[in-house]
């Protein structure tokens, strides 16, 4: 049941976001308000995705989160392509989880991660557009009493070819909504696309340059309280006690809420809450991991390289015999540290628990998981929950986890009837992530006298993300997800053995942009460079020879080499490095041009990234994703490292967890898009995969020094 009190809150939110119009208007409006709007003469729904208004403007619903990647434009483009509406009259609205539940998941998956938004939903979105178009055509044909085959839809208008009569979508929408949707629709041939593949301005940008309150942190409700939180600094530790009597009567204090492993202060604004929290004496029970350090964890993970009995993921031919017969054998060990996602908007979530109902406003990458978490935390049935998706101030995989939702709902439950906005400080965000896993790898390769690769053994010792989120997917001790880019390596090698040692410390790990393809390619592709060097071959040609059976990998490798002028003379002091890696359904290769001074000053002169995602929906957005991957990826390679001491993370904010700034961004970045058609791959993560190895291979070319451990700031290298 919705109380009038609720309704007034909802209306307030509508008004406060409506001022900006456009996208903001649609930000967080719950279903009842939408129903009201429809009742007030707005147009009817044609399929769950599409509403056509009397003025022929079209509302296209978006079920995935917008975290900067542009899918709130790309997804509607897919619908509009088939609908044949006027793109300039398209608005979007996010789907609410209660509607999704009520309508039996009419909008499919709402999860946003793994670069899946476009590739997993392109088919049903295009189908939805085509279905609605057919209904509009049929309604117009009925009105004219002509065969449907004589009518075309174009730019929001239906045209009867023989008589040149025209009807706008808005004029036939009502009629169309009463028709039975066609069972089968035919999708356009890619050659006939008008929108897909052409750059379109993003629909969310006007609101983002005018400061509209789009984000979770911006949610404002009447009577709202604000919560700050301190979590046990040692993972898996517990709250022992808190001397909350110390702040009794402090200005603005509403309540101190004790959770199992955290303390929250609820106050009348966030700054006061956070200030009080800092003065609170809190005693933690660190548990058994209070002595752990980076060195002890590294040693623990590294044992996986020495362990004599570990699961085998692939075993082909006979590597040991091949090593014995090889003309040359090389070995190397690689290391990648923990990393923090660091989206610029810290974790936050707003919740209201009242009368057995829960309402949540959340910047989440998985609204349905947020919904389920809220229900479980409050102890109410799923039907009594609604989650309104806000824009995300960056996600990068962090916001698929629901820890902050759980906390917000638990706190809201402790102050029932009052909406609470929980916001983590940057320090909490830095010290309570699901970090990119620490990973070590050891390689051994055998080459024959002609420099051909004859045998390759790989031992991967790593934290496993699946162990925490989907343990059932780990089969016989082998986490194929953690082996991404390794277990499926594209190179042809007759003798191959891949072993996996799962080594989980107390540090929580999670999906971070490009996931295991952010560290595994660094290791694999740098070692392939070592092979080429040992074989006395050009690293590009060496890869080409091994990729003969893999045309897509070969395609991007060639594209990057060509665009970068691989092999052509370079300016004095400049050197190139190359790498290739497929991931998330797409293919990417990169070439870096660098120079390195004797003092270790690294100058990145040019970055070329070739990407084949099958189809590109919005080329301008795709280029933006390449640039974004360069900034995100290079930040990790240059400076990224989360370290621990006394069981806790040492970094606390951006002064000791460095993020690339504008002056440090390479000035020459070339995104070479080479969509080869026939498949739909991701675009937000793949371009990052080949960056670290291409850069490190260029550094080797310049200095003769192999980088086998990141970040570069620990290797005597400094960006200039």
């Amino acid at each position, binding site marked *: 049941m919705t109380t009038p009190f609720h309704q007034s809150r909802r209306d307030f939110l509508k008004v*406060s976001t409506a001022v900006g119009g456009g996208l903001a208007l649609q930000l967080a409006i719950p279903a009842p308000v939408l129903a009201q709007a429809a009742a007030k003469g707005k147009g009817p729904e044609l399929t769950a995705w599409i509403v056509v208004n009397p003025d022929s403007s079209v509302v296209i619903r978006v079920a995935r989160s*917008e*975290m*900067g*990647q*542009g899918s709130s434009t790309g997804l509607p483009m897919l619908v509009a392509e088939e609908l044949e509406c006027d793109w300039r009259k398209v608005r979007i609205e996010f789907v609410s989880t209660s509607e999704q539940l009520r309508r039996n998941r009419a909008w499919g998956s709402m999860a946003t991660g793994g670069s899946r938004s476009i590739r997993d939903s392109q088919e049903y979105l295009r189908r939805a557009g085509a279905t609605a178009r057919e209904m509009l055509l049929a309604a117009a044909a009925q009105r004219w009493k002509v065969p449907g085959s004589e009518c075309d839809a174009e730019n929001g208008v239906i045209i009867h070819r023989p008589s040149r009569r025209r009807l706008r979508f808005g004029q036939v929408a009502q009629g169309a909504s009463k028709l039975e949707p066609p069972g089968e629709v035919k999708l356009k041939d890619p050659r006939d696309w008008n929108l897909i593949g052409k750059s379109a*301005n*993003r629909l*969310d*940008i*006007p*609101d*983002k*340059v*005018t*400061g509209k*309150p*789009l*984000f979770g*942190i911006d949610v*404002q409700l009447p009577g709202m309280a*604000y919560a700050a939180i301190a979590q046990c600094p040692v993972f898996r530790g517990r709250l022992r006690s808190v001397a909350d009597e110390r702040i009794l009567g402090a200005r603005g204090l509403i309540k101190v809420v004790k959770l199992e492993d955290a303390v929250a202060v609820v106050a009348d*604004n*966030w*700054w*006061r809450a956070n200030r009080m929290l800092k003065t609170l004496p809190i005693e933690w029970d660190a548990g058994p991991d209070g002595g752990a350090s980076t060195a002890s964890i590294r040693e623990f993970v590294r044992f996986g390289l020495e362990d004599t009995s570990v699961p085998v993921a692939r075993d082909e031919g006979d590597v040991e015999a091949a090593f014995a017969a090889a003309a040359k054998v090389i070995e190397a060990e690689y290391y990648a540290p923990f990393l923090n996602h*660091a*989206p*610029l*908007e*810290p974790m936050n979530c707003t919740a209201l628990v009242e009368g057995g109902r829960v309402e949540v406003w959340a910047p989440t990458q998985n609204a349905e998981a947020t919904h389920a978490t809220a229900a479980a935390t409050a102890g109410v049935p799923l039907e009594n929950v609604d989650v309104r998706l806000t*824009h*995300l*101030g*960056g*996600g*990068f995989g962090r916001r698929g986890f629901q820890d902050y939702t759980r906390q917000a709902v638990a706190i809201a439950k402790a102050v029932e009837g009052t909406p609470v906005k929980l*916001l983590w*400080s*940057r320090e909490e965000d830095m010290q309570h992530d699901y970090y990119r896993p620490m990973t070590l790898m050891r390689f051994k390769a055998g080459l024959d006298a002609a420099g051909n690769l004859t045998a390759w053994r790989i031992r991967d010792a790593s934290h496993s993300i699946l162990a925490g989120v989907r343990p059932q997917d780990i089969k016989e001790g082998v986490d194929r997800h953690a082996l991404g880019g390794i277990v499926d390596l594209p190179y042809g090698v007759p003798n191959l053995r891949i072993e996996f040692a799962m080594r989980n410390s107390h540090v929580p790990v999670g999906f971070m942009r490009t996931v295991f393809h952010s560290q595994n390619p660094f290791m694999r592709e740098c070692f392939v460079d070592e092979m080429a060097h040992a074989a006395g071959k050009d690293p590009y040609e060496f890869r080409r020879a091994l990729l003969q059976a893999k045309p897509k990998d070969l395609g991007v490798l060639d594209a990057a080499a060509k665009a970068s002028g691989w092999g052509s003379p370079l300016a004095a002091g400049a050197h190139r490095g190359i790498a290739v890696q497929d991931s998330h359904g797409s293919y990417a290769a990169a070439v870096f041009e660098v120079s390195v001074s004797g003092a270790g000053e690294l100058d990145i002169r040019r970055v070329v990234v070739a990407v084949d995602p099958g189809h590109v929906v919005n080329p*301008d*957005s795709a280029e*933006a994703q390449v*640039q*974004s*991957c*360069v*900034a*995100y990826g290079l930040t990790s390679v240059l400076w990224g490292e989360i370290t621990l001491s006394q069981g806790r993370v040492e970094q606390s*904010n*951006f*002064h000791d967890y460095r*993020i*690339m*700034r*504008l*002056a440090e*961004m390479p*000035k020459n*970045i070339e995104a070479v898009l080479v969509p080869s058609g026939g498949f739909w791959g991701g675009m937000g993560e793949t371009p990052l995969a080949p960056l670290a190895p291409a850069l490190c291979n260029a550094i080797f070319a310049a200095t003769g020094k192999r980088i086998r451990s990141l970040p570069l700031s620990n290797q005597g290298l400094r960006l200039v």
Partner: protein
Amino acid sequence: MIEFTVNGRKRSADVEPEMPLLWVLRDVLDVKGPKYGCGIAQCGACTVHLNGEPVRSCSVPASAAAGQNVLTIEGLAQRGRMHPVQKAWIDHQVPQCGYCQSGQIMAAVALLKKNPNPSDRDIDAAMTNLCRCGTYARIRTAIHAAAQSMKPAKA
């Protein structure tokens, strides 16, 4: 009670003098454009203008704003028309997640006010705000474009 002008309007807030301007704006006055990213003057997401100068409002106490003029992204448009920097940001499709962009735009507007024709080096020096989405290349292009569009028409 602290009184000051926000986007041309007189506002007052009953807050501690040491409360950062950012939180007075966001939580007391419901001006949500300036964002919280770090709280220690590192990221610039909270950038506003104080008497025309760009400041990181998370590190400016409310007392320092008393009687002064504060301009936020919400006050940038004049008579419903976007500032040339905002237009350039749209033309060059700068924002991704958008979280840093209020601060970036306020920093860029301040730069162009001081230096109507900035070089790449000037932009490097002035634009120290963090963007985790890596929109830097487009920020640079958009600043150059805005500088062009703001040049007085030749007589």
